[in-house]
C-alpha cells in the first residue's frame, strides 16, 4: 500500500493500492503541483522511488521543487521532455532527456529504463506526469488518450502509484471527461472567487468527498 495519510489535501484517503493512478485536475495556481510533490515526498520519506515526467519545466527546477518537500534526492529520477535544455543535453544517472513533449515513444523508453533500474532496488515507486496539458498542446486527444491508457496500465503492472496533472482550463469539458477515463480516481481543484480554492476527491473513497477548502 502507498501511504498518503499525512497529506491533508487527500483526506480521508489514508493509503492507495499498488497500481493506482490518479488525475489531479484544476485551474492554474490552485495547488495541483503542491499536491503532487507532497505525494512524491511522502514516498521519499519511506525510501520509495520517484519518477517525474516533466514537460513544462526543466529537470533542475523539478529537483529543486522536490527538495523543498524532501531533501534527499537519491531516489528521484526525472524524465525531462520540456526541451528547455536543448537537444544535445546528455542523460545522467538521474535525468533522462527527451527532445520534445511530442515524442511519446522517447518518454516511454526513458520511463521504462528508470522503472527497470528502480525495480532492482525492490522498493515502491511513485510516478508523476507534470503535465498532461503540455502533451495536449502538441498532440491530439486520441493519441494522448491511448498513451494515458497504456501508461497507466504499465503503472498498474509494476504496482506503482501514478499521479498525472492536467490544467482543466486548457481543454474542453468533454475532453476532460474522456481524459479521466483511464484513471482510478480524480482530485479536482476549482477556483472559488475571493476564497481559497476548493477541492474534492472522487473514485478513491466509496463516495466522492464534498467540495472543501484546499488550503
Amino acid at each position, binding site marked *: 500500500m502507498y501511504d498518503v495519510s499525512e497529506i491533508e489535501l487527500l483526506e480521508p484517503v489514508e493509503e492507495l493500492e499498488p497500481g493506482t493512478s490518479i488525475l489531479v485536475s484544476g485551474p492554474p495556481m490552485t495547488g495541483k503541483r503542491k499536491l503532487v510533490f507532497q505525494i512524491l515526498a511522502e514516498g521519499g520519506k519511506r525510501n520509495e522511488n520517484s519518477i517525474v515526467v516533466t514537460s513544462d519545466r526543466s529537470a533542475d527546477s523539478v529537483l529543486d521543487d522536490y527538495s523543498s518537500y524532501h531533501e534527499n534526492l537519491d531516489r528521484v529520477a526525472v524524465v525531462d521532455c520540456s526541451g528547455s535544455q536543448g537537444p544535445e543535453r546528455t542523460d545522467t544517472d538521474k535525468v533522462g532527456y527527451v527532445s520534445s513533449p511530442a515524442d*511519446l*515513444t*522517447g*518518454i*516511454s*523508453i526513458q*520511463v*521504462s*529504463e528508470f*522503472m*527497470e533500474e528502480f525495480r532492482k532496488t525492490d522498493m515502491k515507486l511513485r510516478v508523476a506526469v507534470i503535465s498532461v496539458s503540455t502533451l495536449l498542446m502538441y*498532440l*491530439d486527444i*486520441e*493519441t494522448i*488518450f*491511448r*498513451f494515458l*491508457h*497504456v*501508461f497507466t*496500465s*504499465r503503472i*498498474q*503492472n509494476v504496482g506503482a502509484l501514478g499521479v498525472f496533472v492536467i490544467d482543466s482550463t486548457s481543454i474542453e469539458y*468533454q475532453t476532460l*471527461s*474522456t481524459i479521466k*477515463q483511464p484513471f482510478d480516481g480524480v482530485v479536482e481543484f476549482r477556483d472559488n472567487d475571493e476564497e481559497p480554492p476548493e477541492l474534492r476527491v472522487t473514485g478513491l473513497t466509496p463516495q466522492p468527498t464534498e467540495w472543501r477548502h484546499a488550503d
Partner: protein
Amino acid sequence: MILDEDGSVPDLKLMVVDDEPNVTDTYCIWLEDEYDVVPTYGGKEALEKLDNTVDVILLDRRMPEMTGDEVLEEIQERKEDPQVIMVTAVKPDFDIIGLGCDDYLVKPISKHELFDTIKNVVRLGKYSGELQEYYTLISKKAALESEKPMEYLDGNEEYQELKSRIDTLEENIKVASQSLDAEGFIATTRDLMDDRHSYQRGRTR
C-alpha cells in the same frame, strides 16, 4: 486480427530471416506445425518476399549482407505493417523497440520462448488495435449523448449496439493490458505515434 476461442492464432503467416540456413530451417521446422512459414536467408530476399500477407517477421539482427536494423528501417518506410521480433546475440537497449521492432529474443532461443514471444506480439497488436477502436467508439457515444435525450437513446438500436461493443472492448483491453511489459509499453506507444503520422499524411493528401 481475430483469435480463436482457445487463444491460438489462426492462419498466421510468419517470415523467418537468418543468414545461416540451418538456423532459418530450424525455426521453420519448429513453427510450421502451427503457422504458415516463409523461410528467407538474408535481408534482401526477405524484403523482396515481404507482402501484406506476412503477419510476423522473425529477424536476425547480425547479418553480413544487410543487417536486421537496416531491414527494419526499410520495413518502417513501406506500407506493409508486419510485427517484428528481432533476434539478437546480446540483450539490447529499449531503444531497439523505439526503432520499430515489437519485441526481441536473445540467442540461443528455445522453441518455447519463440512460441511465447510470437503469441505476445500478436496479442500486443490486437490490444493496440482495440485501444484505437475503443477511443473511436467512446467519442461517438459521448457525441450521441450530448446530442440526443436519454429517453431516445434507450430505445435506439445503434446506441445500444455501440454500448455493448464498448463493454466487450473494455473487457478485452483490460485483460490484454495485464500482460503489458516494458517492451509492450514502448511498442504500443510507438504504434499509436505511427498511427498519428499516417493519419496526418492522409489528411494533407
